[in-house]
């Protein structure tokens, strides 16, 4: 589950997340695959951490190992005037090995030209991506100039079933080959 966001400059944050799979050979069996966390404000004396603790539970079925699901998140913040504005994008692979993982999904936001940046500074806005696919794929990334903002922490537990009988190994036992 997304535990929280750290290191953002803004402190009122909520996240819009979704699980994106590479292709249509992945079918979603059960669970919520996209959602939005609550809006959470950082603690007064620890403004670094914004806690969401949003639970996730989903089941996938697949016929191919291509297109392993990715966890995509957009972090938004709400300012004191009630406006919602983008804080950043982030994507990370769902780990393949079974077990519990603590992941840090780093977040970046697009940066515009100088004039746009001045505008953003005074009006507290952000440049957005035209198509959010760019955030989750790698094809057009070189076009972007981005700015690093904080990160989102996830704790994910992964379970697989049925793969072993088809010869797929997700975690080599210690001492295994190579």
């Amino acid at each position, binding site marked *: 589950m997304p535990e929280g966001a*750290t*290191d953002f400059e803004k402190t009122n944050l909520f996240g819009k997340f979704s699980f994106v799979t*590479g292709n249509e*050979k992945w*079918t979603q*069996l059960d669970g919520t695959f996209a959602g939005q966390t609550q809006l959470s404000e950082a603690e007064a004396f620890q403004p*670094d951490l914004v806690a969401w603790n949003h639970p996730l539970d989903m089941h996938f*079925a*697949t*016929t*191919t*190992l*291509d*297109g*392993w699901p*990715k966890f995509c998140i957009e972090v938004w913040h709400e300012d004191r005037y009630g406006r919602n504005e983008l804080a950043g994008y*982030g*994507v*990370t*692979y769902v*780990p*393949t*090995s079974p077990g519990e*993982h*603590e992941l*840090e*999904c*780093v*977040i*970046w936001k697009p*940066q515009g030209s100088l004039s746009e940046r001045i505008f953003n500074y005074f009006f507290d806005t952000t440049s957005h991506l035209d198509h959010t696919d760019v955030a*989750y*794929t*790698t094809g057009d*990334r*070189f*076009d*972007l*100039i*981005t*700015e*690093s*903002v*904080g*990160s989102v*922490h996830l704790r994910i537990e992964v379970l697989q079933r*049925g*793969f*072993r*009988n*088809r*010869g*797929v*190994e*997700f*975690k*080599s036992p210690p001492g*295994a*080959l*190579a």
Partner: protein
Amino acid sequence: MDVPVHYWTKDPIQNFRVRVALRCVQAGGFVTGQHEDEDVDEFDKTNFDNTSDNSQSDVENENGDNALSSSSNSSSGDSSDEGDSSDDDEQEESLLGRQRKKNKKKHKKKKKKTQKEGDDNIMTSQHKRQGRSRKRGTAQREWSETFTWQEKKFGPRELVRYLGSEDEEGNAGMGRTAIEAEYLEQIARRRRFGEDLLQDAERVMLFTYTDKDGFVPKNEMTKFVTTSENFSLNPVAESIVTIPGTGGRVAEGREHERDDAFDGADDGDYASLERTSGTGEVSAGQRVFRESPFKVFYLMAAVDVDAAKLRSLRKEDGKFYEVVLCTVKVKRDGSLVEMQPGFSASPSTTAALRARTNDEDSGPPPTTWYRFKTPFGSLYEYSLINEAESLDPLLETEINTIQRENLEKVAAALEGRVPNALHDGPSAPNQIVRRVLVELVSAFDFDDAASDYLYVQYEVHLPTNARSPWTWFNGSREPIRGVTQTARARFLTRFDKVEGDQDTERRRRHTAHYCFPLELSFSQTVTDALDEIGHEQPKIFFQVKSRDTWERHRTEGYASVLLPGAAGTSFHQVRAWKVSGSLRQQVSEHFVGGALQLDSSMYSSFPQTHQGPFLNRYGFSTQTSGSLHVRINTVVHRHVGIADAAALDARDRELRRTPLQQMAGISHHSAQSASTGDMNTSQGQQRRRTVADILQSLRLGRGFAGSSAAASRTAAAARTGAGAGILASLNRVRQQQQQQQQQQE
């Protein structure tokens, strides 16, 4: 006796029948010589009979010492059933005695002594009278009632309330809850039909409290968890124990001191029947729900009832002792019944014995009699006999089979959504496919003097020697290249636990975030298992470059990661180095940029021009720069044929079957045979009945008195036969509705 007993049942709602048989062991007026909190099951009846006469004085002394058993004092007597003329005297004296008891709650011992002396006269006179009656034989009068689930039978307190209130000005609507209104209406209707509800009022009345009544037995309200004298429940406990929405109404009153804990009906109790107006209790109760949803059913007995007084419907005169005989709880999903205390004889025993003896009456006597004592000194014992229809073993197996098949159908349906085959895998047995998910997470600690804007170029190179078994999944061997976005680094805190990272403190580093996912698929041709590891592994090379506003590009570092062969998830924090050239080159790099670059990034591992076993990098000087954080997920996909996969799946399913299933020999449905299985069951549905059908046929059979079980009911059950008939028809309607729903599904 305090431990609840659990029963599994297929159909508790329809099938629950319990017969309560209550009999009086010892009529009241005696001090019994037992303390209140002793386990009366060990009570020796014969011993009592013989020694009670002699041990009067001893017992008095004992009771004097026991603070709790004040109620067993003989100050009040149950002589109403004798119909003696001195009844009223008795009552008054008992009333006096009670009041005296109440006034001196704090000084128990003193009070006992005075009472003892004062009551001796009463006692002896009572005793003589009681002794006479007792010598006539311990009362073997037995009262019996059969109850089905949530069958409401009014108790004396309720009768007085509802009948009495009707006689008054007809308090409609004032402070009445929905339940009260419903009961009032019921009683009014029955009276209109000429039924005399008080005709059954006698010394002992068996009745029930259903779930709706919101009754809470006194022992739950005055539960003593600590040794403290203060036993009032805190608001949270109170709201959990009392049923929300009824205003926390408890039928037996709440404000009791410890020594009055066994007081039955009292003037104070009647007053507490009114809905408590305290808003605190009501709102707290509504906020807290039952932790695990259940429906409760109380089987009650009111003993030592003064029937004459009850008929007069005078609240002030009715004194009796309400006791909970049995608490029945059914969990919401309906299959687990919790009873406290449990049935007296196990149903299978009873049924088996019944079958064997072919007995028409109620079967062999139950084995366990539970006992309780009243404050008036009477001792009663009761038994709970399970009268539920026990299913024919054949029917039961049929029901079990149907239920199991339903479950398996559901499992197969879910299984059907999961695909069977895995594509894009190795096509030949000697082929291994590796899928590597590389994620370039961030670059940090690079020199921030030059520029904040960093981008990373990556190249994935397969080993170039001819013997290498590695190719891309599409068969080519060309390196894959790409570049990330240009990210502006900021001072951000790093939290990640990175493999081999000695620096565990969190501090702000100059970090550029990329989160760049890269999916690579390798195909490896191996001849045997050793061949897997005997070759050079593919590598991924990174070049970190910076770009400033003047469009000067500088190389900030080179790094490379060996793609791991083992499957799993790994983090890598790769240190990068940059070339430090001559002074001239450095100056040029600073002003113009682009001076210090490697020809090919492969130089960081094996240069392309390298040959021979000895790699010499002498003369090449570099400078350490920042780090890259790379997360790699590796999946190894070996070849398994389709037939083999299916066989392995079948074996897994076999192993997953529970021992019960294995014993029953039920064949499992596999995903492929689910379709054929469906065909079989659709044909079989014509001859197979659903569970509901079976149970309904049982009930119909029962209604027509076709089975011997129907004839074995007691008179009490027959009296409620009218009610049972209504219930049976209600059950039929409910079953039909369920059937319709099932057909729709």
